[in-house]
Each structure stands twice: as structure tokens, then as C-alpha cells.
């Protein structure tokens, strides 16, 4: 009897070890290899999120009404602000046309694959935000049916927020650049005067709410407030997408490695509508 109990315990430990190893292996394969979702997963996800959207509709209606009421409170100030912007539009339009011509010429010279001006925009609504906590993702209501593809950049009017990692027929998962994921690194450039300093966006400091840029390419003095944008190197983000502005520059004890803290003007706490940058064919 005692012998039997002992054997059973051994089997349980063996099975437990096997299950843990299996879960670790599969999770690693799924998360790190970034494979596409299977048709089974896609259909379950789409169906469940469709139900979720139906349930959310009446709640959203009341939420919008409250926001509408709050907006109406400072309508006059907003009108004045917009009037100022309208006056500047003509000037910006002519500048834009000139810049587009310049970009076209530079692209031919540098043989660039794609730039920000080549992308078309697709607006999407956020369905849910950061469920699962560690993954730093949001789900949006546009999928492959709307032409969304994996690795497309996602922005809001204030700047870059992340990229599409999983796509179903009618929904997509967007991984935010605030993610702690050690593989989530983006190449960025900092505009200092007329030249650019290159670095790697390597993480997000949750306490200070700033991005960390490391691997700065040279010793140029970087002033506070310098604009940080993506470089376009790699396949994910087109060149020139705004990430934020330099808040602080620190160097190590030997004055060799620079670390730049970057603040983003994106309000990550209130992402309701986003824009996907679709690459032109």
C-alpha cells in the first residue's frame, strides 16, 4: 500500500514537470515566434468580440453622451482655437506640397523602400485595453477584411503608439511601444539642429512615464525638447513617425554611454480611437 502511494507520487511529479515544460515550450513558441493565429482562434476571437461589441453598444452610447456634454461646455474656446488653425491651413498645404516633391527626389537618390507620406490611413476604434496586463496590447475593430496586416504601425494624432501583432478577420491586436517586452526595440533618430543622432528605443520607465533611448551613435550634445522620430530602418515603422521629445540626457560614470529619456505627448491612458498606417501597394 505504502509502495503504491510512493509510485503514485512519483508519477504525479513527473506529469507536473511534463505539463509545466509543455506550457513553457508552447507559450515560448507562441509569444516569441509571433506566429499567425489559426483559423480556429480567429473565428472564436471574432465571434466573442462581436458579442462584446454588442453588449458594449448601449454603454458606449451613454459614455459618448457624457463626453459630448463635457465638450459642449467649452465650445467657444474650441471654436476660436480651430479658427486660428484654419488660417494656417493654406500655408501648411503649400509647404506640404513642396516637401512631398523634395521627399520624392530624396527617395530616388537614397533608394528608400517606403516613407510616411506613402502610407494611407485607416481609423479604428479600441475594443479593449491591456487585458492580461503584462502584454501591453490593445484590441482594435479592424482586421484583414479591412486590409490590416501584421507589423503595420499604429498612431494617434500625437504620435506613434505601436504596431499590429495579430490579425483576425475583423479585429487586430496592437502591441504598444510602452511594452516591457525585451524584444520590442525600435530604431529612432533625434533631430539636433540640422543633423540627426541615431539610437534605439529600448524600454519604457513605468515610474517616470518616459521612454528610454540607448545606443546613441555619437557624442553630439542633445538639447532638451529635441524631436524624436522613427528612422524607417527595419520593416515595422516608416521614417518620420513622431515618438516624443527629449526630456533628459544622462551619461554613465565614464562619460561613454548616453541614455536619453523621452516623453511622449500621447495619452496612453485614454486610447479610444487610433489610426493604422497602411502601406501603399
Amino acid at each position, binding site marked *: 500500500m505504502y509502495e503504491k502511494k510512493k509510485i503514485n507520487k512519483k508519477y504525479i511529479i513527473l506529469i507536473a514537470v511534463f505539463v509545466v515544460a509543455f*506550457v513553457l515550450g508552447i507559450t515560448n513558441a507562441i*509569444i516569441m515566434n509571433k506566429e499567425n493565429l489559426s483559423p480556429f482562434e480567429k473565428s472564436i476571437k471574432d465571434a466573442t468580440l462581436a458579442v462584446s461589441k454588442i453588449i458594449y453598444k448601449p454603454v458606449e452610447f451613454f459614455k459618448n453622451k457624457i463626453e459630448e456634454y463635457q465638450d459642449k461646455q467649452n465650445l467657444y474656446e474650441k471654436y476660436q482655437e480651430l479658427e486660428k488653425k484654419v488660417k494656417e491651413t493654406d500655408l501648411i498645404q503649400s509647404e506640404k506640397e513642396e516637401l512631398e516633391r523634395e521627399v520624392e527626389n530624396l527617395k530616388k537618390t537614397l533608394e528608400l523602400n517606403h516613407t510616411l507620406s506613402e502610407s494611407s490611413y485607416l481609423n479604428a476604434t479600441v475594443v*479593449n485595453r491591456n487585458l492580461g496586463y503584462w502584454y501591453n496590447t490593445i484590441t482594435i475593430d479592424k482586421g484583414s477584411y479591412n486590409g490590416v496586416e501584421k507589423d503595420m504601425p499604429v498612431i494617434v494624432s500625437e504620435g506613434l503608439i505601436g504596431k499590429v501583432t495579430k490579425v483576425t478577420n475583423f479585429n487586430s491586436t496592437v502591441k504598444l511601444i*510602452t511594452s516591457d*517586452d525585451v*524584444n520590442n526595440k525600435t530604431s529612432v533618430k533625434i533631430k539636433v539642429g540640422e543633423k540627426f543622432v541615431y539610437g534605439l528605443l529600448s524600454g519604457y520607465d*513605468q515610474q517616470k*512615464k518616459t521612454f528610454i533611448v540607448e545606443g546613441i551613435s555619437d557624442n553630439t550634445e542633445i538639447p532638451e525638447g529635441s524631436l524624436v522620430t522613427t528612422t524607417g530602418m527595419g520593416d515595422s515603422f516608416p521614417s518620420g513617425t513622431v515618438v516624443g521629445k527629449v526630456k533628459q540626457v544622462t551619461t554613465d560614470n565614464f562619460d561613454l554611454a548616453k541614455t536619453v529619456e523621452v516623453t511622449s505627448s500621447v495619452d496612453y*491612458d485614454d*486610447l479610444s480611437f487610433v489610426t493604422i498606417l497602411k502601406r501603399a501597394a
Partner: protein
Amino acid sequence: MQLAIIVTVISFFLESIVSNFVSINSDLFLPLFTIVSLVIIYPYLKKERANYYKIAAVLGLFYDIVYTDTLILNLFLFVMTAYFITKMNYILSNNYFNVALMTVLAIAFYRSISFFVLVIIGYLPFSWFSLFRGITTSLLLNVIYVVVLYGITDFFSHKYHITKID
């Protein structure tokens, strides 16, 4: 069994809806209603423990597919958390205070295990601060939810004479 399914399904969808009203980096109000519903339904399935684990597994699988895209990680974590809740119920009886306490412990257990799995596979860097923040940010809202849900389910169980073992 029916009450348990209704509670888990409502909690599952409510978690998604509530996430749209709280900030992503909220310090206090991150919803984790699906896991919390496992604490509430246990007394109703005490005699059908196999069904309790089956519900936990199905919930975990749906959580994986719909919310986190991790396929079996949450299935495993939800079943482990359900086992942890079962063990806690041997020690603690069911009342408002104990249900809130079990929720806090279940959240700490779930967050810690998921954090360590993600650190082991090299997805997240190890940091005590991250782990601590992951736990504390989810406590307040979920404790409020569990207390309200406990009151509602208790009311319906009395009204419709649903068997509940405290």
C-alpha cells in the same frame, strides 16, 4: 451550475468593457473579473469539483484566444488558480471578508505565476517592482467587484434555492 456559468460569462465580458473606462497604466483599477469569478462560483460547485476545473479551463482558453493571444498559458494558469482557490476554501469559510481576502490572494497568485512564466521564457525582464505593481494595481477594483458580486449571487441563491456550501 447555471448560476456559475452566468457569473463567469458576465464577468468575462464585463472585464473587456470596463477596460475601456480605466486608464491602461492605472495605479488602482485594472479589471481582472474573470479570475475573480472563480472565487465566487466555487461554493456553488463544491460538490461538482470536476465541473469547476472544467469551467476554469474553458474560461482560461477563451481568455487566451480572445484577450491575450497566448493559446494555452491562461488555460494552465486558470486551472492552477482554481486549485489554489479550492485549497483556500479548506481553510476559509465563505463570507464577505474571506471572499475579499481570497480574491487578493488569488490575484497575487495568478499575477506572480504568469509573471514568472513570462520571465522564464525571456519575454519580460525580471523586476520586483513590475511584479509588485502588477499585483497592487489589480486589487482595489476587483475586491469591490467581488464584494458586490458575492452579495448579488447570495441573494439569487437564496431566492431560487440554489445549493451553496459555505
